[in-house]
């Protein structure tokens, strides 16, 4: 006998410890089961695109930092590549290498937060503390290089703000040697913990065709089993010179594309990033890092769309220049913004407690969702 029951609306956020910022979710519940999820965003809409129109090209860079504040280096990276493409300038080899190293270090730092908070939401507090301890080591490398801990403004159009510190190469190598065993430790502590697996395996399964139709990119798409990485697909900077693999979700403990797969892809990606850094750090050529910085940045009329592989997915900058000192329009294709769209689809039919597990595995940064 089917009783006619009413669904219940449960509000979650914008102040909630597990929403990774100020996301508001409107959950429609049938008992414990989720019928529908409506994300409400915009609580951190900081008008980046309006600011970009009012600033000159180099002045936009500090604002790109503040979009995805966990991966500021990569935001700078994408923006400067776009403007350089518009200007048609070549940057020195040394700059390319340093950019790649910084980008990959940033990817590790960002994944550390993603994994740590994912665990924290589910109830694993210890890994969070350990991972933040390791992240602090990467931050000290950044701080030594450019003087800031979180928002770097390090990559400039045509170059870098500072050359690397004389100790940087040695300390980075030390970090790599230190960090490899830590990943194994993390795997033992969290990844293959039965409780963690029970909470994440077979939860929030994202089939591949849905993922593509929703435009999901980054670890979330790779977790669904497609080896799609812009570093290989549409290679930029000097990523074609390095030997690395694209980890994909294989459904080791559950179905392909579940939360655990998305989580595990991040761990494997950190190892690949270490590999890239190892290769790059030995090859840095000598040279000047400010050689190609133009005095006045005034690109010709035209449009450009470039994309880079941000730790969260495809970060695209669509810039329209009207030949003035300020960009006419900068549109950001923020990976978290697009990845969050599929969230409602993933939650359907799961329990309320799974919402945070799924949200943690998508790894959104609200600064980027709202811009």
């Amino acid at each position, binding site marked *: 006998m089917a009783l006619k029951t009413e669904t219940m609306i449960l509000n979650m956020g914008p102040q909630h410890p597990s929403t990774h910022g100020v996301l508001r979710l409107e959950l429609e519940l049938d008992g414990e089961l989720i019928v529908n999820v409506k994300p409400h965003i915009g609580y951190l809409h*900081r008008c980046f695109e309006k600011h970009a129109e009012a600033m000159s090209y180099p002045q936009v860079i500090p604002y790109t930092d503040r979009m995805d504040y966990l991966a500021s280096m990569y935001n700078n990276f994408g923006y400067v590549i776009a403007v350089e493409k518009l200007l048609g300038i070549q940057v020195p080899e040394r700059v390319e290498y340093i950019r790649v190293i910084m980008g990959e270090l940033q990817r590790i730092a960002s994944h550390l937060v993603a994994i740590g908070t994912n665990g924290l939401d589910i109830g694993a507090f210890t890994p969070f503390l350990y991972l933040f301890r390791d992240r602090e080591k990467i931050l000290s490398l950044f701080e030594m290089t450019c003087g800031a801990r979180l928002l770097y403004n390090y990559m400039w159009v045509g170059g870098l703000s500072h050359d690397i510190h004389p100790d940087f190469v040695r300390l980075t190598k030390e970090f790599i040697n230190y960090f490899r065993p830590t990943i194994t430790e993390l795997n033992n502590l969290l990844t293959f913990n039965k409780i963690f697996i029970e909470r994440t395996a077979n939860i929030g399964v994202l089939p591949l065709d849905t993922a593509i139709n929703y435009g999901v990119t980054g670890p979330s798409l790779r977790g669904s089993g497609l080896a799609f990485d812009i570093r290989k697909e549409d290679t930029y900077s000097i990523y074609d010179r390095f030997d690395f693999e694209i980890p994909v979700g294989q459904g080791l403990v559950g179905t392909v594309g579940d939360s655990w797969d998305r989580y595990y892809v991040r761990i494997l990606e950190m190892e690949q990033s270490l590999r890239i850094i190892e290769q790059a750090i030995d090859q840095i050529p000598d040279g000047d890092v400010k050689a190609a910085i133009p005095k006045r940045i005034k690109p010709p009329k035209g449009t450009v769309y470039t994309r880079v592989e941000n730790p969260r997915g495809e970060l695209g900058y669509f810039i329209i220049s009207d030949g003035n000192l300020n960009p006419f329009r900068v549109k950001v294709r923020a990976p978290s913004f697009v990845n969050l769209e599929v969230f409602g689809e993933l939650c359907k039919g799961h329990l309320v407690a799974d919402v945070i597990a799924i949200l943690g595995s998508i790894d959104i940064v609200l600064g980027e969702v709202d811009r």
Partner: protein
Amino acid sequence: MGLLDKEFSDGNVVIAKVDDLFNWARLSSVWQLGFGLACCAIEMMATSASHYDFDRFGVIPRNTPRQADAIIISGTVTLKMATRIKRLYEQIPDPKYIISMGSCANCGGPYWEHGYHVLKGIDRVIPVDVYVPGCPPRPEALLEGLLKLQEKIRNESLRKKTV
């Protein structure tokens, strides 16, 4: 402790001693509302994590305003969010303290000029006790802001303020 807050019109020895006790208790367990807004929230998390360890000062993140003593406004407050912050603030029992962390919360920060959707300073909505500058402030700077707040609490009194 709303009943005992600023209720007494004249001070005496007992009140002075009770003051000290209350202030000591309050300043050494500032439970904050775990509430991250933007970039500064990451530095706030780093402050509570291993390297800086907020817990040493008795600061524990609470997830509901009703158990909290303080909010650290860590990041940009947008107009959409400001009404919610006001509501959260009103739900905190007295005495309550606000630390405004970072440029954005202080005065809109980098978004003060063209930010059509950014509240230019959280002090337009709720009263602020300590302003911590920085974009984002280093964890040490946040700790220093907390020490300043503790200083402020230490000098408080149960007596009514004379105008």
